[in-house]
């Protein structure tokens, strides 16, 4: 479904993505893990056309992407952002946030679609005419997912979708995302700094550091802890909680 090959990207003079290759089958779930500055979010942003300076090949559903994205692309792939507090317009009601894309793409039936989108993400009609600040973080993230789904995309690009949420809410949202993928046959690329989240949600994982993919693994390999690259091993150990002896083995990767 998604083929990324030899992707390089620059922010001004910084070479932020170096020869990134990713392949995601239809209905697959691919995880990108890394710390800040690893370039994981940049990969998503390059796919959605938010990055100007890039080279390489990005093929989505058989179609090669150029410098600009068109409406067809937006009906194929949508993004869910990290910050539930920042990704919904503070002055728009939930209804408006969900209706606008429907109108832009001329899909019609906006009323029914809005109700359906809210139901899909587990929110009832009471939320429809509220403002974002009247919702909790988890509810806002559900709205963000509903907004992504209302255009009936086949691909969801998830940029740390649960990092800003409480642990118990994270579980609910991750379950929702899992269910949606199964029920709607979606393809995911999920970016996270949390190895455990990615291990839980994804089939294949790539670990990134300073713009490069340093290791690829399947979920099974992660479960067994059989990682080869020293950076991945360090990340894996760090995910296990605090251990003074382990910290001494940490190296700064520059």
């Amino acid at each position: 479904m998604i083929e990324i090959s030899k992707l390089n990207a620059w922010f001004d003079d910084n070479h932020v993505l170096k020869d990134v290759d990713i392949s995601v089958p239809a209905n697959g779930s691919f995880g990108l893990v890394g710390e800040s500055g690893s370039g994981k979010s940049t990969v998503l942003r390059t796919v959605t056309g938010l990055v100007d300076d890039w080279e390489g090949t990005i093929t989505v559903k058989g179609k090669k992407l150029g410098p600009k994205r068109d409406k067809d692309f937006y009906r194929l792939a949508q993004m869910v952002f990290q910050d539930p507090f920042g990704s919904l317009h503070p002055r728009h009601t939930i209804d408006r946030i969900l209706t606008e894309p429907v109108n832009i793409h001329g899909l019609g039936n906006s009323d029914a679609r809005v109700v359906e989108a809210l139901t899909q993400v587990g929110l009832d009609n009471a939320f429809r005419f509220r403002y974002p600040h009247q919702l909790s973080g988890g509810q806002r993230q559900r709205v963000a997912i509903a907004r992504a789904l209302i255009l009936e995309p086949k691909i969801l690009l998830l940029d740390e979708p649960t990092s800003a949420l409480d642990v118990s809410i994270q579980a609910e949202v991750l379950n929702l995302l899992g269910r949606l993928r199964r029920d709607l046959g979606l393809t995911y690329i999920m970016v996270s700094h949390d190895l455990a989240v990615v291990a839980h949600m994804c089939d294949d994982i790539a670990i990134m550091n300073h713009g490069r993919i340093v290791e690829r693994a399947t979920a099974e390999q992660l479960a067994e802890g059989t990682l080869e690259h020293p950076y991945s091993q360090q990340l894996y150990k760090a995910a296990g909680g605090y251990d003074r002896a382990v910290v001494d083995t940490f190296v700064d990767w520059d």
Partner: protein
Amino acid sequence: MTTQISTAKPGLKQWLTSDTPQSRWQAKCGRAWLGWIKFSENKLAMVGLSVVVGLILVTIFAPLLAPYDPLAADLTNRIQPPGAEHWFGTDQLGRDILSRLIYGAQYTLLIVGLVAITAAPLGLLVGTAAGFFGGWIDAVLMRITDVFLAFPKLILALAFVSALGPGIENAILAIAITAWPPYARIARAETITVRKEDYIEAARLQGTSNFALIIGHITPMCMSSLVVRVTLDMAGMILIAAGLGFLGLGAQPPMPEWGAMVSDGRQFLLEQWWVATVPGLAIFVVSLGFNLLGDGLRDVLDPRGGD
């Protein structure tokens, strides 16, 4: 909820404070209601609001309120001190100052209203375009704005009125031309902050056009700062209009514009102080009213703080 004494019917109040609005209109009204509650807790802001509302009411009901014809000269009654027949006395042509004051309110309101309606949208448009597109559009628009900002407002207004000729329409035009640049600056600053937010990117990713982004997404975020600034500026606009009127470049005689009235009374300032002082006090009170209103609005309208 709040313990505000409300005269709204229970049904209406219920509708306004409902947790689950049934329509966008209801949601908007509910939000406005909450804003009003917060605003009304500020005593000084309410004073400001009363002054402004008072100004509007005086303008509407001028014919009913004014005891005399503001233009009726009575040379036998020149420069009478305030008394039972003429509460604020008469001017050098024997016209009742109170009536002139009342009818003059409409000029104040006209000036302030027309300037706000023309300058604010212009500034908003220029500022959001500059902030949104950046690059050479930003540079060109901002340099034009800088040119206008370089001149002190009164001087610039004077220059324009001198070029266009005296008269209240030209005065309004001149003030509007000098008033828009700060709004462009404010709108641009807000736009630059807002355009990096995720919700703008999300809208872009749904296929929203640049035009729709500016009008529907960015402009609402600029409105709060803009409304506050415009309201605070109104006091200044009144003073500039009064200044122009004082110099004979604004409203022309016999229009009872307050600035012109102060100018007329200049010559009698020492002995017959009321001719100049009364309209001067009116200018002061209304300017103060707008200032207090603007301050109160600023406390209530804060896009980042939520409601």
